[in-house]
């Protein structure tokens, strides 16, 4: 262990006590950090869901940040009066979710295309979209009817769309 060359007067017992104190302080700080970090993560989780997952989640969907991936249902796009707000349905094999979006839609936005909408379910029964993303990935193909959404691919194409 360390030798004390310039402070021979400091006793070993005192040093042991101060070291114990340091270790205890460190442990307390570490626990506090873990609690804060875990709380922070828990509050800010972003779920990657399909319409099926969203329906299965029930009440959990209200207020949670969700990236909802699916296909724009044919015939569901309604441009609302005003600059750029629109409504449409996102669907997969197991369900349909009604989405309201306020932003300018990206160039590729159209019926039957794979989209990811980020936002949350509101109590009025629709999905409030803050961000609408369409594939920029040449490898991505919108899920065909009868096929589930490949979520890993969805994740990738969210990243490309950013």
């Amino acid at each position, binding site marked *: 262990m360390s030798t004390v*060359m310039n*402070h021979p007067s400091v006793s070993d017992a005192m040093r042991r006590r101060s070291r114990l104190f340091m270790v205890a302080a460190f442990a307390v700080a570490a626990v506090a950090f873990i609690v804060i970090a875990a709380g922070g993560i828990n509050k800010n989780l972003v*779920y990657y869901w399909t319409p099926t997952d969203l329906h299965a989640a029930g009440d959990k969907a209200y207020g949670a940040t969700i990236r909802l991936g699916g296909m724009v249902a044919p015939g569901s796009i309604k441009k609302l009066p005003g*600059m750029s707000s629109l409504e449409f349905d996102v669907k997969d094999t197991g369900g349909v979710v009604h989405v309201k979006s306020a932003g300018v*839609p990206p160039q590729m936005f159209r019926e039957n295309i794979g989209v990811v909408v980020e936002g949350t379910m509101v109590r009025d029964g629709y999905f409030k979209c803050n961000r609408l993303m369409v594939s920029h990935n040449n490898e991505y193909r919108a899920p065909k009817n009868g096929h589930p959404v490949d979520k*890993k691919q969805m*994740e990738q194409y969210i990243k490309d769309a950013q």
Partner: protein
Amino acid sequence: MTSSLGRLLILLSLLVSTTGAVLGYAAGWKKSADGLKWARRFAFTFSLLMIGATLVMEYALISHDFSVGYVAQVGSRDVPLWVTLVSLWSSLEGSILFWGFILAAYIAGATWLTRNEHIEYMPYAIGTWLFSGSFFSFLIAGPASPFQTVANPPMDGPGPNPLLQNHVLMAIHPPFLYLGYVGMTIPFGFATAALLRGRLGQSFLRPLRNSLLLPWIFLTIAIMLGGWWAYEVLGWGGYWAWDPVENASLLPWLTATAALHSALVMERRGSLKGWTVTLVQASFLLTILGTFMTRSGVFNSVHSFTQSSIGPTILVFLAVILIGSVTLLALRIDSLESDSRFEGPLSREGFFLINNLLFVLFTFTVLIGTVFPLVVEALKGKQMSVGRPYFDSMVVPIGAVLLFILGVGPALPWGRASKEQAKRALLPPLIGATIVAGIGLALGVRNPWTIITLAFGGYAAQVTLGQMWLPVVQRIRRGDSAGHAIIDSQLVRGRRRFGSYLIHAGAVIVIVAIAVSSTMRTQQEVRLNRGESATVGGYTFTFTGTDVKQEPHRTSTLAHFDVTKNGRQVAQLAPRMNQYAAMRDPLGTPDVHTTLKGDIYLSIMNIEGDAVGVNVILTPMVGWIWWAVLLMGAGGIVALIPGSRAVALQARSESPVIQGDEVGAN
């Protein structure tokens, strides 16, 4: 033919590096000078073989030899030469070969520079480097195999990912990132050598510190280039999204920065040796973890992960290194005993300690947020990510306190400071803090965190400039001429010190610019017909029309905008929508007008006939980040160049306890 030659070189480099690693460790164990000589020869041979293999691949790419697997995957006859050259790192298999190439260059350089020194440590260091070399040789020979022969070579290939071709920064960013990442192998080797030898003498600090500083410089610039690229290309107007790929590059930077600071305490006070070594080991581990996360495809696609065994192989390597490092640290950390005692929190080393704890906290914050989704997915099969607010809310306070420490620490003397001393050092910079925060308030800053950051930034700026100025004043008082005093104190003798304060100055500007640019941003989506205009943040944007530009590999539609303020023209911007041959969907490229005050950023959402939907983003100070990071890099280079002071320092540092001198050589 070419692919066989490449495979042969890789197999030989696997053989040479494995043998060299065993030889190195054996030479260290037996303290054999001959063994060390042979280990060095093996290191140089490995480097030659690996660099040769990379040149073979470049030759195959340039000559469009589609019988080589990797060329068939990313090559194309239609792309410009520079794209062909950088195709080496455009895809997974090639980028691992590129890793091998850079590792080879680093190993050769480090072995050459230490040829006459540190003979008690070098066998272990070379052994460790070659161990890493043998792993990457194995990865290239087996799981990645870019040199695989294609039985029926195609006439032409698809070319690299269009995102790579979209901006020239994508050609510069990866090499810098790799130079930063791979370079961490060298200090890792030195630290492992110190642990294996059970001693870390003062003379060995210099190679440890310098070998850490060089990759740190590259990594610092690489992180900035990545952010700049995202800003210039991706069209959402930001430079950092806490994406796993970004986090992977930040994590080793954080621990390496902490290690550079604790190495200073180690040099001055002889303490924190085990801690510094731990941080160096952690930096290397985090580069491997980062490679696993970004290169194995765990975050991208389940397919690339299951199809290739690269990911699992890297994971095994990571586990081996982690277990090895922890075991070694547990067994040997006590032998790197500290020579001096911690004297009190109100001292420079006290603040170094706080700095280190904060960097570690920062690292854990980012690490947990990045790895958590992976763990949940592995355990529960559910997919999620940790949202930006988590990172922002955790990192902003840590960053603010770090900036505070950056100001207070250098103002305090080494050893225990008396109350009087502390007052004299800590009170004057409050003027700087008040001035900068006042300017911010006058210009409309209202976010409390931004105001705090500005105040801390002003404080730190005054301390940093004061510390840079101090040795000049001291020399002038001693009777030197002003010019001589400046040159002598900053560039000849105090070069390391001057370099570190340049880095600090850059860091202060970066943190302030990040705070201002992320909280003072104006963003608005507008839809305009031709001839119409909209006003955002005092600027008037007039859409004057579109035109189409044809290039060999893409067709671009440009939307032209006139930007005016109070009737005076400020800029003409032309964001574009690009259609690549290899891609079904169009890809936008924003256009940016950068001024000292801030950026005007236009990004097209969609174009329909005569109407355009465009995202207008006004961000103050964002351009400051890029050049201030370059200033940090320049400071690093200044600190790295050996000065006459370094020699003096080395001689002096052989004595066990070092007392601080009046100026401090840092």
